[in-house]
């Protein structure tokens, strides 16, 4: 029963544990419930990915109604990769959360925090396994609404305005997506993605479908924080609780990329998206702008969380750059970087969260001499930073390598130069933190700062370990990314 219903259980288990978590009054129990669920989700994700890897795309008809009359869960390799990303990050972030949340949130809010976290997890998982366009919208809203709440729980009052800004922009994006789904339905009469893919080529030449495509692109771009619609991201990441930033930086925007891929390749089709609508060129332009502008702005930030937030906008630029190349190599490079960046950014934000726990601040000028007091945390930060820059033997190097080679294959050699330049910029802003922590004279009261607790160090180091492992032997993950890309661009000439 478990195996045959696995795609549904993947989403149902966290969905059911959210109200259960709310019924538990004790914050410790709520945390335990969230922890247990996250690990269960990881177990199922691994099983699911394994099945898809060996048996191909999985299809599950909810309610046993034949598609397209019922809602279908359809997991292919790209979706399985996303499930893995979300599950791994969730499972690692939960043990970390115990200390971090106690410090950053009011006591009364901790139980509800875990409830909203489980809802966010449900929403994200629901987006990546579904084969129905409207179902995607519903779960997108579940994950978005819970993220607004999670962000607003930050300790400073600016968390509230950041959450509000994200709410307004996110809802506009979601409404655009809804308009797009409505227009698609109006012309084809169906909501199932595979069915849409079949029916769209006949009607693709209508103005309505073109407008639907445009609205979908803009709506999803808001969600994935593509330049210039990224405005909500720096504030949201900076003022949210550390756990929330780490989780969202690694999952929410990546799921946005997945939605983009799903609609561009599976629903609208390669030919319509990239040849008729020229979305590849537009995305490439925006990605380049994202990479340059965001990396540059990051260099000048004093608040490390904000610096890493702008760095995330740049990294999303890399992912979109790979996709905009419109080749199997480009898409697989993009997906590879999606996976690696999730690991890198999560580790970095976890390290920063530990620093915030012990130091009470994440400003660079408060971090002088920190390395002596928190050696493990800073070492994790350095390792993550090296991966972000793209030093060999790290995961970041692998994905940048594949990205550059995909760009060169497509004939865009200036992009290779761009990647190099932005890596140098990353070096600068990482160095600023490293220099302050290792090479500056510590402040008078720095000696009172202790190292972070083990429950916060271990998840960060597990991610770093995964990073280095992939840097040395990336075979499996490259294989998965390439398979995922192959399924997506399957209709390519």
């Amino acid at each position, binding site marked *: *029963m478990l195996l045959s*219903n696995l795609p*549904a*259980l993947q989403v*149902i288990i966290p*969905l*059911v544990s*959210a*109200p*259960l978590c*709310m*019924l538990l009054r004790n914050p410790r129990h709520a945390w335990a419930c969230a922890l247990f669920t996250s690990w269960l989700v990881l177990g199922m994700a691994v099983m699911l990915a394994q099945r898809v890897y060996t048996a191909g795309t999985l299809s*599950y*008809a*909810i*309610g*046993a*109604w034949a598609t*397209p*009359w*019922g*809602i279908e869960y359809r997991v292919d390799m790209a979706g399985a990769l996303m499930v893995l990303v979300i599950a791994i990050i969730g499972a690692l972030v939960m043990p970390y959360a115990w200390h971090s949340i106690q410090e950053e949130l009011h006591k*009364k*809010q901790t139980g*509800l*925090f875990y*409830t*909203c976290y489980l*809802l966010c997890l*449900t929403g994200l998982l*629901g987006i990546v396994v579904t084969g129905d366009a*409207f*179902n995607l919208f*519903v*779960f997108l*809203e*579940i994950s978005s*609404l*819970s993220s*607004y*709440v999670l962000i*607003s*729980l930050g300790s400073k009052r600016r968390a509230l305005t950041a959450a509000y800004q994200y709410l307004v922009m996110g809802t506009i994006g979601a409404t655009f997506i809804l*308009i797009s789904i409505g*227009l698609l*339905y*109006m*012309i*084809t*009469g*169906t*909501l199932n993605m595979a069915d849409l893919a079949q029916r769209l080529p006949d009607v693709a030449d*209508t*103005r*309505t479908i*073109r*407008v*639907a495509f*445009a*609205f979908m692109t803009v709506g999803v771009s808001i969600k994935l924080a593509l330049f210039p619609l990224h405005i909500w991201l720096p504030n949201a990441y900076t003022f949210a609780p550390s756990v929330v930033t780490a989780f969202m930086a690694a999952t929410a925007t990546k799921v946005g990329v997945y939605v983009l891929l799903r609609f561009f390749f599976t629903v609208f089709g390669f030919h319509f998206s990239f040849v008729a609508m020229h979305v590849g060129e537009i995305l490439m332009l925006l990605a380049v702008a994202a990479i340059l502008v965001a990396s540059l702005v990051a260099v000048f930030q004093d608040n490390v969380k904000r610096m890493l937030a702008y760095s995330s906008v740049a990294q999303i630029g890399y992912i979109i750059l790979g996709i905009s190349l419109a080749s199997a190599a480009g898409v697989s490079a993009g997906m590879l970087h999606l996976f690696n960046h999730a690991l890198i950014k999560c580790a970095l934000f976890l390290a920063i969260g530990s620093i915030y726990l012990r130091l009470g601040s994440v400003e660079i000028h408060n971090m002088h001499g920190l390395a002596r007091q928190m050696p493990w945390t800073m070492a994790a930060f350095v390792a993550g930073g090296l991966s972000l820059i793209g030093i060999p033997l790290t995961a970041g190097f692998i994905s940048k390598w594949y990205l550059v080679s995909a760009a060169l294959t497509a004939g865009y050699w200036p992009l290779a130069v761009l990647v190099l330049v932005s890596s140098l910029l990353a070096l600068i802003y990482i160095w600023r933190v490293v220099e302050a922590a290792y090479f500056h004279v510590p402040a008078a009261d720095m000696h009172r700062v202790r190292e972070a607790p083990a429950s916060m160090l271990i998840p960060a180091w597990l991610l770093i370990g995964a990073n280095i492992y992939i840097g040395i032997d990336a075979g499996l993950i490259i294989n998965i990314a390439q398979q995922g890309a192959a399924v997506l661009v399957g209709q390519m000439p």
Partner: protein
Amino acid sequence: MEYLIDIVLLGLLMITGFAIVRMRSLLAVAMLTSIYSLLSASLFVVLDAVDVALTEAAIGAGISTILLLAAVALTTDEEQAPRHTPLLPLIVVITTGAALIYGTVDMPHYGDPASPVHRHVAATYLHDTPGEIGVPNVVTSVLASYRGYDTLGEVTVIFTAGAGVLALLGYRTRRRNSRGPGNRKLVVLRVIAKLFFPLILLFALYIQFHGDYGPGGGFQAGVIFATGFILYALAFGLGNAQRVIPHRMLHIMMAVGVLIYASVGIESMLLGGKFLEYRVLAEDPVTGQHLGIMLIELGVGITVAAVMLIIYYGFVSQQRSGDM
């Protein structure tokens, strides 16, 4: 004739919309929003969407207005004059509007029976519902059975909103013996509230269970149920309302509703079917459908009622001098 009503309603909607943009008194804007919602509900009736009209009236004109009024009461009534020229927003809006109008050119004509939406999936729903599911209201059959999973997502959205408002606003329990606001002023309201309260609850139960045969269902019923209690709270004060339905009970109800819904699905999995496959719930597939639909609508109604009340409590308990 229908077209005439259609045009009048759309015209009124436009006037209300423009007024909302221009007016600076937020209290007036809140009421205009309520009118906008009610006009939309009327338009939905003209467009033959009766379930949607009921929901829009209950949720849009009902609950949203209450929340807006509470928010305005807790903040400020006057909107400050905008300090920036609205040039960029105007450009964005005009571009978006133009794109949409460009998109409408190829659309099927309004009311056209040959358009793609009326064939394919929808035609099958209309054709198969009497035989497979056995309820006359096709909207309920699609909502609760064919696309029942979306409705589970919807209940989860409501649950998220409840959890979110709880996390943001919390609640403060009023003192138990609080008599509420000045007694003489509210005599009429209290008499009427006492008369209407049981009728509202009865109506809510009717909507809940009659949703198979006419417009209605869990969402509308839950909202109307909550409205009864909100009316009571308005007339007798929050303290007394919290004695009738304490916070803890609402917490539990909120979670239980979602769990009822999900457990129907899990039960069908345990009985060998797929998630939310109602057919396996009983000997006869159609009975199974009826049973499944009834249970999930119950879960929906419970969660929606609880969440609406929790949100109301959350907003209103923020008042320092309570008389809302």
